[in-house]
Each structure stands twice: as structure tokens, then as C-alpha cells.
């Protein structure tokens, strides 16, 4: 088995179970297991020798038309919610950059989206979820009931139990289209200023050029927007193109990435331009490209996403962009985003500040570069996103997540540390 990054690859057995009773007896019999959703986290957080796949547990249990409260089983994909609810004028309050993840996975990674600075993480849209503990007991968790379990499970990487179902709020939309503004900036300073200037916009994200050195360092295309209100909600089947095979790994190199970056940057008009685009292109640009992870070749890739507290963001990013540009290792897709306030969950990634996500194909010297960047991130008080990680050294992880000790204590108390483990949790001693 492997995750979306195609790295690492692990020999494992997956058990496909959808019935709650069977799940309980399964937990009784198995030594150690991790829940696997749709395999879209990048690293080893959902991998182990035993994995229980909950995707068939995907029933929509209830929906309240007036409040938008949806009760849904944890194996359902966000794409399924969108397929049936966008035409009725509803959208996810918080959506990540791919719709092909399960509700359970969204909770376990406490995912965030382009509107984190306004709406926070996925857990903010949750009313409650039900969790199966190591002994098979089922508990309801919310911000008022079993609060500790709620705080630990949201962002807890599946290490507290099996999430069975959840109640979450959808939000009303008046169109499937997004009115988007693209702001072209010439350097990192301008990029930061643009983020601040447009921080009232519900959705914002920037593509950043990571290879340009000197004066143009940090030049970006900032995209901000909100749903239109034209009543156009009709379902549209988007054409999907598949990457049919793994690209040879030399295809992506600093030269080809530079060419891509230049073309992409120059395609956008100068200053501020406006577009009206479908929500799928706005939120899920890569979802229309099936198996896009194959572009990085058979050896796979890793996504490296870190966040820095706001006060250190500018300096930190400057230093990190210098380091990357000097290494010559191009990141094909680099995404910069401004985040809002941190929540109280033990292992949630977001904090108020700026996050940068970088894709690197696995190659010689990469992990050394990432260790160096780790150093800068930690020094500046930041942290690294577990849903994307496959390599962070233990001490760097611990320094980024000060609440991990509470998490460990809770795991011991419920015997979770003996039942629910991933390769990542063992690697990091969570």
C-alpha cells in the first residue's frame, strides 16, 4: 500500500469493514491497526501493516434543509456531498484542495481550506462525531461532550479510534461559480501586502514562484474570491483527464519547473484581473487530473507544508525561499496562504500566520534540504503538517506541537497507543 505521495510503500493487509458490529469484533481480534480513508494524505499517516478501510461506510443519515446540518457516515467522500448538495445550493463550510477525501479523514487531519482565516478548520463546522474506542465502546464527542476526545480526535491522525459518523454544517451558496480576482505581485513584500489587503475576502490562496532569486523572490499570483449569487447551481460533469503512467523521474527538474513557473506567472495579466470560474476549478484544480501524483515518477514525492507564526512569517519565508532557490530543487506547485486563529485541538496544524506547501519529488539530497528547512521552521516557532509528512525527525515534530504531551497521556489512558498506530505515529513516537 501507499499513500498519495507514492512514498513510502508498505506491505500491508487492508480490511474492508462497514458494519459497526463487525468493526467492534475486528478491533477485539486485531493487535494494531490504523484507519484508512481514501488514501489522499501524502505520507505515512494512514499506513501500517494492518489497515481498516472505512470507505464503504458512506451513508447519508440525515439532512436538515433549514439549518444545513448533515449527518453522514465517516467513509463518505466530500466529493459525494458536493455532487448531491451543490445543485441544491449547499457547500462545505471548510473544504481542502481535493474533494476526494473521506469525512473521517477530514476530521482526523482537521483539514483546512482557502477560507481558514475566516472559517477555521473542518472541526469548526462539526457539531459532533461518534468515535469507536479501542475496547469497541462508542462515544459521542463534541465541544461540550467528551471534549478531550473531541480535541484529540480532530487533527489526531486516526490515533484515538475509528470515527464512525459525524454531524456537520453545510453552508448556503447562491451559485456554483466563484468571482475570482487574481493579483499579480512582484516580490514577497508585495505578496504579503496583498494578502493583508484582501484578508476580508472569504477565500484566498497564492501560487508562489520558489525558484526566482534576488529582486523577484517571492513573486506570486494571489487568488481571492467568493461565491457568486446568480442562482446557477446546475450539475456539471467535468471532464477528467488521467495521467496514464508514471512519468520518468527526470521530467521534473529545476529547468522544467522554471519554464513552467515563468509561463504560469506570465499568463496572468499584470496587477489585478477578474475571472468568473466554476467552483471545481477554484477549489479543486488538480482533481480533474486523475493520478496527477504520477507526474513525479515512480519514486514518488513528498509534500512539505509548514506554517510560521505571523510575526515571524516574512523573515522566515525569506530565509526558506533563499534556501530552496540556492538548492536548485524546484517545487512544481508551491502554495502560500494566510491563516486565522489557532484552535484548541491537540494536533491541528493551523496557527495564525503564513503557511507554504511545497511538492518535491523524492531524490538524493532532498531530505537534507528539508531537514535544513525544518530547522528554520522550528527556530521561527512554526510547525509541519502531519497529513503530508513522511520524514520529519521526531524532535522537530515535538517542538512544533507543544500539546503532544496531552495527546500522549490521553492515548495511554484509553489504551489507544496499543491499538491505533500508523507508521507515522511510531516514527514520531506520538
Amino acid at each position, binding site marked *: 500500500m501507499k499513500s498519495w505521495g507514492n512514498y513510502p510503500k508498505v506491505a500491508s493487509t487492508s480490511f*474492508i469493514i462497514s458494519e459497526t458490529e463487525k468493526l467492534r469484533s475486528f478491533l477485539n481480534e486485531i493487535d494494531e491497526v490504523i484507519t484508512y480513508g481514501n488514501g489522499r494524505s501524502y505520507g505515512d499517516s494512514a499506513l501500517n501493516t494492518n489497515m481498516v478501510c472505512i470507505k464503504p461506510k*458512506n*451513508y*447519508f*443519515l*440525515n*439532512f436538515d434543509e433549514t439549518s444545513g446540518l448533515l449527518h453522514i*457516515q465517516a467513509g463518505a467522500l466530500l466529493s*459525494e456531498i458536493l455532487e*448531491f448538495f451543490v445543485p441544491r445550493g449547499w457547500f462545505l463550510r471548510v473544504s481542502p484542495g481535493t474533494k476526494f477525501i473521506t469525512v473521517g479523514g477530514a476530521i482526523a487531519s482537521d483539514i483546512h481550506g482557502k477560507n481558514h482565516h475566516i472559517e477555521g478548520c473542518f472541526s469548526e463546522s462539526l457539531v459532533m462525531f461518534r468515535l469507536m474506542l479501542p475496547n469497541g465502546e462508542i462515544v459521542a464527542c463534541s465541544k461540550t461532550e467528551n471534549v478531550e476526545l473531541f480535541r484529540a480526535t480532530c487533527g489526531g491522525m486516526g490515533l484515538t479510534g475509528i470515527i464512525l459518523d459525524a454531524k456537520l454544517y453545510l453552508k448556503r451558496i447562491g451559485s456554483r461559480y466563484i468571482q475570482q480576482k487574481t493579483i499579480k505581485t512582484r516580490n514577497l513584500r508585495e505578496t504579503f501586502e496583498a494578502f493583508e489587503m484582501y484578508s476580508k475576502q472569504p477565500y484566498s490562496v497564492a501560487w508562489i514562484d520558489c525558484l526566482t532569486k534576488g529582486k523577484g523572490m517571492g513573486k506570486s499570483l494571489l487568488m481571492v474570491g467568493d461565491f457568486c449569487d446568480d442562482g446557477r447551481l446546475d450539475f456539471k460533469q467535468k471532464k477528467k483527464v488521467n495521467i496514464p503512467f508514471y512519468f520518468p523521474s527526470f521530467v521534473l527538474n529545476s529547468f522544467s519547473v522554471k519554464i513552467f513557473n515563468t509561463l504560469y506567472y506570465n499568463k496572468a495579466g499584470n496587477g489585478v484581473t477578474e475571472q468568473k470560474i466554476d467552483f471545481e476549478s477554484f477549489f479543486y484544480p488538480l482533481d480533474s487530473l486523475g493520478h496527477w501524483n504520477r507526474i513525479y515518477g515512480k519514486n514518488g514525492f513528498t509534500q512539505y507544508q509548514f506554517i510560521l507564526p505571523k510575526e515571524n512569517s516574512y523573515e522566515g519565508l525569506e530565509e526558506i525561499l533563499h534556501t530552496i532557490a540556492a538548492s536548485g530543487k524546484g517545487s512544481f506547485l508551491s502554495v502560500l496562504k494566510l491563516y486565522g486563529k489557532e484552535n484548541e485541538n491537540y494536533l491541528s496544524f493551523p496557527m495564525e500566520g503564513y503557511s507554504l506547501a511545497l511538492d518535491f519529488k523524492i531524490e538524493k539530497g532532498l531530505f537534507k534540504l528539508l531537514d535544513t528547512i525544518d530547522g528554520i521552521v522550528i527556530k521561527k516557532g512554526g510547525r509541519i503538517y502531519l497529513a503530508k509528512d513522511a520524514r520529519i525527525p521526531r524532535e522537530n515534530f515535538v517542538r512544533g506541537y507543544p500539546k503532544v504531551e496531552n495527546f500522549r497521556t490521553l492515548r495511554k489512558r484509553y489504551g489507544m497507543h496499543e491499538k491505533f498506530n500508523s507508521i507515522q505515529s511510531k516514527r514520531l513516537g506520538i
Partner: protein
Amino acid sequence: MKNLTPYNQNDLGSKEEYILIIGAKSDIARAVARKYAKEGYQLYLMARDSGSLGEFSSDLRIRFEVKVECLDLDILDYNSHRNCYDSLKQKPYGVFTAVGYLGEQEKAEKDIGESVRIINTNFTGLVSFLNVVANDFEKRKSGFICGISSVAGDRGRKGNFIYGSAKAAFTTYLSGLRNRLYESGVHVMTVKPGFVATKMTEGLDLPKKLTATPQQVANDIYKAQKKRKNVVYTLWLWRWIMLLVRNIPEWQFKKMNI
């Protein structure tokens, strides 16, 4: 409009109509239910202990905004079948049977109880229920019946021939029913799935390339039903595999371990 004789022109099935699925707890049945609901049909779901279909029926109502009714049906309680069918307020436009019991071959060889259970679940019970349906459809001159049989019925092999022979009998029954109902414009379709990854086959080590998901089977069934196909293999490759298997001479076949 195309001339559809000898079929009844009204038999295209308006989407206000109901599809009846019996054995609705099976994975294939659920996939078929979702497919037809997605296309806008209303559903009757029948199963033993239909109460356990509650969550699934909510799912169908919320996703597809269709009407779903769950009803109890014990396929082995033959005398109840007529009442059960008569209780449907609006008679269905199509009927699916996804009832199936694989059983245990070895146990069945020693225990006639297990053999009878396999035979009656996969054959006798369905004959009883479909006779009732067929009489109604024949009178109304419309509707379709789709029975899920199995490639296991195409040739008996030592690993599962009790199940296989019950399915063979069901295949023959459907073929006869198709012949009988042709003149009334009622279509009968036989579906022969090969390997399908379901609860029934859980724990079996199935070859990936020959194993369909229930969703694939449901899509094949829907397409084939719309085209009024008679016998459908799913995955399609199984038609050719079974052609080969059926043509192995008996003197050779009896020595084989497949």
C-alpha cells in the same frame, strides 16, 4: 417515436415508477438501488429484517430525493409471497432479485439441511416470488424482471456445485420465463456476475482483474436493462471465460481442479 412492437410502448418506464429489489441487503442490491435512484426511480426494498435497511434507505432519500419503502420478505416463506407482493400500493415497473446464499459446499455435502437451504434460497424461493410477479406483469403487459444468477451455474465444479446447480436451475427458470413473457412485452434479463468484491466473497482471494465492484455490476445491469439484453455477464470478460469453461470436454473437465 420508434415502433416498439411487440413491446408495449408504455414500457419505457417513467421515472415516477417503482423498482422492487428483493434481497436488498446484498452489496449488489445496494449498488443497483443507488443506480436506479440516481436515475430518478422510486424504490421498494425487500429483505428479511427490513428494519436494518433504515440507514441505507435514509441514504437513498437524502442523496437522490426519491421515495423508498422497506418491506419484510422471507424468501423461504413461500406462502407469504403473494400477500407481500399484493401489499404494494403501486405495482413496480421492474423487479430485481439479488437474493443469494453461497453456503458452504463441504458442509452441504454432509448436511442435507445446508443443501436444502442453498437450493431453496437461490432457487425455490425465487421461483415462488417471481411466479407471483410474472402473473401480474403478464396481465399488465409491462415491466421487466431481472434475476441475478451466477457464472457458477454455467458448469458444475467440485468447489461449489450445490450453489452452482441451484443457480443453474435459476438460470433455466429465467430463460423459460423470458420465453413465456415475450409475447406480453415483459422483458426478463439474466445477470451472471463473475467475481464481485462483496460481503459474500469477503475473505476469498479473488483475482483483481476479474473481480468487479458492486458499482460496476450495477452500471452494467442498468445499461443492459435499458437495452433489453437477455443474458449479461459482468464483468464482460466472463462471457468468454465461461464459453471456454463450458467447452472443455467432460472427460477432461472431471480431472481438473478449478
